[in-house]
C-alpha cells in the first residue's frame, strides 16, 4: 500500500534523498518532531520506500558509541518523493539542512 503523502512525509523523503540517513539528523534537517518523523519512517519502510540497515559495529566502536540505524531511499521511495513534491511543491522550501554546518565526526 503506498504511503499517505503528507507535507511531513514529503519533507522526510526529501531529507533522505539528500543523503541524510539517521533519525535525529532528519529531525535536525526538517525541524519536525520526533513523534512525527519516526512513525513516518516506520510507515515508509513498511511500504518499501525506505530501507534500513545497522551501521558497521567496528566503525561505531572506534568513535566510542553504539551503532546507529541507517535509513535510505529505495527506487519506490524516489518515485514517492516525485509524486509528493508535485502535491506539496512548497514544503521542500522548509528544508533546512543546518546539520551540514555542524562538524561531523569521522
Amino acid at each position: 500500500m503506498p504511503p499517505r503523502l503528507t507535507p511531513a512525509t514529503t519533507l522526510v523523503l526529501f531529507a533522505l534523498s539528500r543523503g541524510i540517513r539517521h533519525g535525529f539528523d532528519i529531525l535536525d534537517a526538517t525541524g519536525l518532531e520526533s513523534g512525527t518523523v519516526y512513525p513516518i519512517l516506520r510507515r515508509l519502510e513498511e511500504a518499501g520506500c525506505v530501507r534500513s540497515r545497522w551501521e558497521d559495529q567496528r566503525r561505531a566502536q572506534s568513535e566510542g558509541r553504539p551503532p546507529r540505524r541507517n535509513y535510505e531511499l529505495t527506487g519506490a521511495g524516489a518515485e514517492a518523493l516525485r509524486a509528493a513534491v508535485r502535491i506539496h511543491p512548497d514544503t521542500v522550501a522548509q528544508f533546512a539542512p543546518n546539520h551540514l554546518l555542524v562538524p561531523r565526526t569521522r
Partner: protein
Amino acid sequence: MTIPPPPFREPPGSVLVRMLSRLVPRDSREEWVAEWRGELVAAAKQAVLRDEPATLTTVRLWRRCLGATTDALWLRHHHGEPIVLGTDLRQAARSLRHRPGYVAVVVLTLALGIGATTAVFSVVNGVLLRPLPLPHVERLVALEGQPTDGDLEKVNQWTSYPDYADLRDRTHSFEQLAARRRWQVTLTARDAEPARLNVTYTTANFVTATGLLPLLGRNFRVADAEPGAPAVALLSEQLWRGRFLGDRGVVGQQIQLDGVPTEIIGVLPGALQTIENGDLIQPIAAGPMESARGAHRLTVLGRLRDGVTIVQAESELRLVASQLEKQYPENNAKRSAKLLPMQAQLVGSAETSILVLFGAIVLLLLIACTNLAALFLTRAASREREMAVREALGASRAQLARQWGAESFLLTAAGGVFGVVVAWLGMRALLGAAPASLPRASEIGLDLPVLLFLGAVSVAVGLLFGVLPAVQRRRDGAFAALRSGGRSNTEGRRKRGMRSTLVVAEVALATVLAIGSALLVKNLYRMQHAPLSIRPDAVYTTQIQLPNTRYAQAGPDGGRRTLDFYRRLREEVAAIPGIHSVALAYQHPLAEGWTTSYHIAGGEHVAAGLEPEARVRPVSPGYFDAVGLRLLEGRDVTDRDRIDMPGVMVVNQAFARRHFPGRSAVGQAIEHGSPWWPGQPTHFEIVGVVADEPFLGIGRPADPATYFPHSQYPFNEMWLVVTSERSSASLYPDIRSRIWRIDPLLPVDPVVSLRGLMGDAVAEPTFNAVLLSLFAATALLLAAIGIYGVLSYTVSQRTAEIGLRMALGADRDLVRRQIVGQGLMLVGGGAVAGLAGAWALARVLESLLLGVSGRDPLSFLGVAVVLLAVAVLAAWLPAHRASRIEPVVALRAE
C-alpha cells in the same frame, strides 16, 4: 594494539526510552531501544563537540524522547496490540463499579477542582490579566493628579485644561498626551424617541494616542477643536451598529445633539470601548471652563515615547508639576501628578477583590489535588493485599501498574468531563451575578487554555498518585503484605503519616478560605443591617437632564427656563394618580455627586485653594420627607426661598459636626465666592440640619453635605423623586407622558426604585461574599472527604486489632471515641495552622471590609466551631463502622 574506546555515559532521556520500551512489542523491543540509544549517544557526543551547554542538550534530548511515546504506541498499534488495553479498562470499570461512593468522591473532587478554578480564573484573566486590545498598550498610561501632602480632598485626580496644555507642551516623554471629559447629550431625531447618549469630549489627538484608527471616515483634525468650527462627532462602533444599523453611509450625515446640528465624520473601532465606554466622542470646544486653571475635570492619558519608562516620564512630569505649583499657587498648591499603566487604572478598585478570589482558587486547587492524592493513596493501601495475591499468582508489576493506570485514567477522564460542565455553569453563574462595576465584563469568556492546563494538572496528579503505589511497592511487598495479613506495620504507619499530613494541610487551607468567607459574610450582614437614615420603600427616582443649549445656564436669563420646567414638572407629576409626593434632588440618596468649596461666614480666613469642601445637593421642598430623611433641627427649604430672596440651606450632621461641634448650626452661614447664576445669592444661611444620607455607600460614614433650595441653585440635571405604592414599570409611561407634555424632545430614563438601587449598592460585596463562601464550602467539603478517607482507611487496617480489643472487653463507645478523637487530632493540627495563616493574611482582606476587623475574633471562633463539627461528622461513619466490628468475625478473618 587498539585503544579501547572511552566509556560513554548514559545520555539524557535514555531512562525514558527504557521505560517506554515496555510498550513496544516484545520481538522488536531490543532493536527499538538500540536505535533510540544509538541516536541519543551520537547526539550527545556531537553536542559536546559543538560546546553546546549541557542543560540545552538535556532539554532537547528529553523532548525528542517524549516523541518516542508516539513511536512506541505506533509500533504497538501496528502489531495489532491495543494501545489502551481494553481488558485493563474493562477490569478497572468493573472494579470501580463496586465502589460508587469512591468514584463519586473522586469525580466530584476533580470536577470541582477543575471547574471552579477555571470559571474564576477566566473572570480574573478577562478583567485583570489579559492585555487591552490596543497597539503597544504597555506604552499607554493614565495621568492622575496627586496631592503632595496626601490630602485627597483638596487635590483630586483630575486635571484642568490649562494644566493639561502646559504638561503637554513642557514634557518630552510622551508621543501623545491627550485629555477627555465625559458628559451626556440628547440625540433627537424626527422619527424616534429622544435618546440620552454618553459623550466624551476629547482633545483632537485622543484617538491617535490610543493607537487606533477610525473604522470608517476620518479622525479629528486640530481645526475641528478650534472655536467656531462646525460641530463634528465620531460614533462608537456599538452606537453605529445599534442606532444606525451599521449603515456605512452614515459618515457625512448630520445629527442633532442637544439641538446642535453635528456632522458624523467617522466610526471608531470597538476596541476603544475597553478604555472609553461612551457612545460618541466630540472635540473639546474651548469654553470658559477650558481657560480656568481651577476647573479640574479632565482625565489625561498619554502614550510614552518608545524606550521611555514610566518612572522616567513620571519624574519629568513631577518636575513640570512643581514649576506649575510655583507659578500658580492659588490653583495648584500641593498639586503634583502620577502615572499609572492604563490597564491598572481601569481595573482600579476591583483589583483587591479579584486578587482575593485568585488566592482562593489557588487554595482550592491545592486542596483538590491534595485530596486526590490522599484518596488514591488510601485506595491503594486498602487494596495492598489484593495486589499482593495477584502478584504472588504471577502478575507482573507492569501489569499491576497498568491496571492502576487504567483506573486512574477512567476516574480523571470522568472528572475532567464534569469539570468542563462545572466550569461552564460556574462561568455563567458568575457573570450573571457579577456587579455592574466589574470592568470589561463583556470580554470575559471561558478560558480554553486554562481549562486544558488545569485538566492536565489534575490528570497528572491523578496518574502520578494512581500509579505510584503500584510502582513503588517493595520487591518483597507481596510477601510482607500477605504475611502481615493487612495488619498495620511500620510501612503502613509511614504511609498513614503521609496521608495524615496531606489531610492536615487540606484542613489548614480550608480554614483560611472559611475565615475569609466568614469575614466577608459578616461584612455583608453589617452593610445590610446598618442603621439606615432613609426609608427606601415605595420611593422611585429617575434622572432628568435638560440640555444647556435649550435651557441656558449662563446669560441674563440663566436658570429661568430650568426653574420653569421643574416647577411645571412637579405640578404635572403630582397629578398622576397614585403618587403621594413629588420632589427633586441633585443625585439620589445613594449617589455621591460632587463637591465645591466655601467659607464659613465670620470664620477665620483660609488661604485660596485650601478652603473646605462639601457635597452640593440642591433639593426641592419635600425631598427629605419623600426619602424619609429625618430633619433634626430647623426647617426644610420652601418654595418661598426664591433666587431673589436671601440664600438659605440645610446641612447634614457631618457638616454641623465639622464646623459647629457642640452648638447649633442653625443661624450660621457660608459664603460662596461669586454667583453662578444671575441674581443668585452668595451668602447662605443654615436653616436646618438633617441626618446623614448614605451617599458614600451603605454603612460608610457620610461627608459634610449642603442642601440648597433648587430655586436658588438651578441645576439642569436633577433627579425626580416620587413616593407611590405603584410599580416602577407602571409609573414609567405616566411620568414620561407628563414630561413630554412640557418638553417632547427630552429623553426619559427608566424609573428605578430606591430599594433596587440599594440592592445594586451591595451587589459587589454580595458577589464577593457569595463567591468566597462557595469556595469555603467546597474546601470544607473536600477536607471532610479527606478526613473521612484517612479514618476509614485506618479502621479497615485495624479491624483485626479492634476486634481483638473488643474480644478482651473494650467498650464500643471507647472505640468510637478513639476514632473520632483521631479525626479531631487531624482537624486540630490543620485548624491551628490555618488560623495562624488567616491571621497573617488579615491585611489583604481588610480593604474589602467596612468596620469589621480582618482579625475579627467572632469569625475566627465561628470557623473553629464549624471545623470541629465537620471533623466529628466526617469521623462519625468510620467510627460507627469500627464500633460495629464483631470480634468473632474480625478474628476469624485472620
